[in-house]
């Protein structure tokens, strides 16, 4: 089987998944229940992506310990975001905590 054909097939499927709701455009009117449900998508999907990355960064079980820089950095970011709601400050403090923890504290 031609690899190019497989790649183009994958591209077509991905494009279809990503654009179907966009193609429908203004004719797409969601019922209230669906609108309520979609309102929870960002918060849930972004949390679902990052929690495993922070809690088990090596993919083999929970590392709920202060020796896990991903977890410590994430908790610092959560605290800064909850207190200040400032995205850039949250990212900066989270990254700084993570790299200092990984490179200095655990050294």
């Amino acid at each position: 089987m031609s690899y190019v054909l497989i790649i183009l097939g994958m591209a077509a499927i991905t494009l279809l998944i990503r654009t179907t709701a966009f193609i429908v455009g203004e004719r797409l009117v969601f019922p209230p229940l669906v609108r309520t449900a979609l309102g929870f998508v960002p918060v849930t999907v972004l949390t679902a992506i990052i929690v495993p990355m922070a809690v088990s960064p090596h993919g083999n079980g929970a590392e709920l310990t202060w020796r896990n820089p991903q977890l410590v950095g994430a908790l610092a970011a959560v605290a800064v975001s909850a207190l200040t709601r400032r995205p850039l400050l949250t990212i900066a403090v989270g990254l700084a905590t993570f790299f200092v923890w990984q490179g200095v504290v655990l050294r």
Partner: protein
Amino acid sequence: MTQPDRFNEFVAGARDTIPMMIGAAPFGVIFGTLVTSGPLHLWHGQLMSLAVFAGSAQFIAVGLLAANASFVVLLATTFIVNLRHVLYSATLAPYVAHLPLRWRLLLGSMLTDEVFAVAWAHYRRHAPGTVGPYHFLGSGVAMYVNWQIWTLAGLLFGAAFPGLQSLGLDFAMVATFIAIVVPQLVAFRYIAAAVTAGVLAFLWQDWPYKLGLLGAVLVAVAVGVVLSRPGAIRQRAMEATR
């Protein structure tokens, strides 16, 4: 919108995506490196990044191709792994519905996890239809170009970067998503939905094809919807008496 405004919006979108670009860089390099060790030609790897532009699906596809999986298995896997993008485009659809079709196709084609996060964080502060597409476009183009560059770096020099994964650059994505999510946790129903999503995604992370992620999101959204019902009823009652 004037020309400089469009440009500024585009740049702002790209700028808001910088942490995501840092986070995606190691994955691009690792993807490129994986291609060099499998049955694909180098240009196949770049073609996949150019045409598919979906990290998780590309990783899994390289593995499946090395294992001689069939065409149907590859397409079905791509479909399942990328299914969460349906939720992204449904969530953002009201904000792009007024645009010409070519704009909607262009923006949709760039809708990765990261671009969704950035675009939504920008749109949610405004009513649908009041914000132009240039911020979204800037984020998508930045992410797309970034993915091509790091794929190419992996294809050409992948073997020169051992231990790239241990640097933890992907933490930039974690920090950015936290900066977007935490300010949203303004009511109990959002907190409950987020906690459900996080716990289930952790417990189900070993499910194949990212199905654990999808399942966690669906259950968490259901929790949010159930908790929204009394509030929604009260609101409707208030509107009726107005």
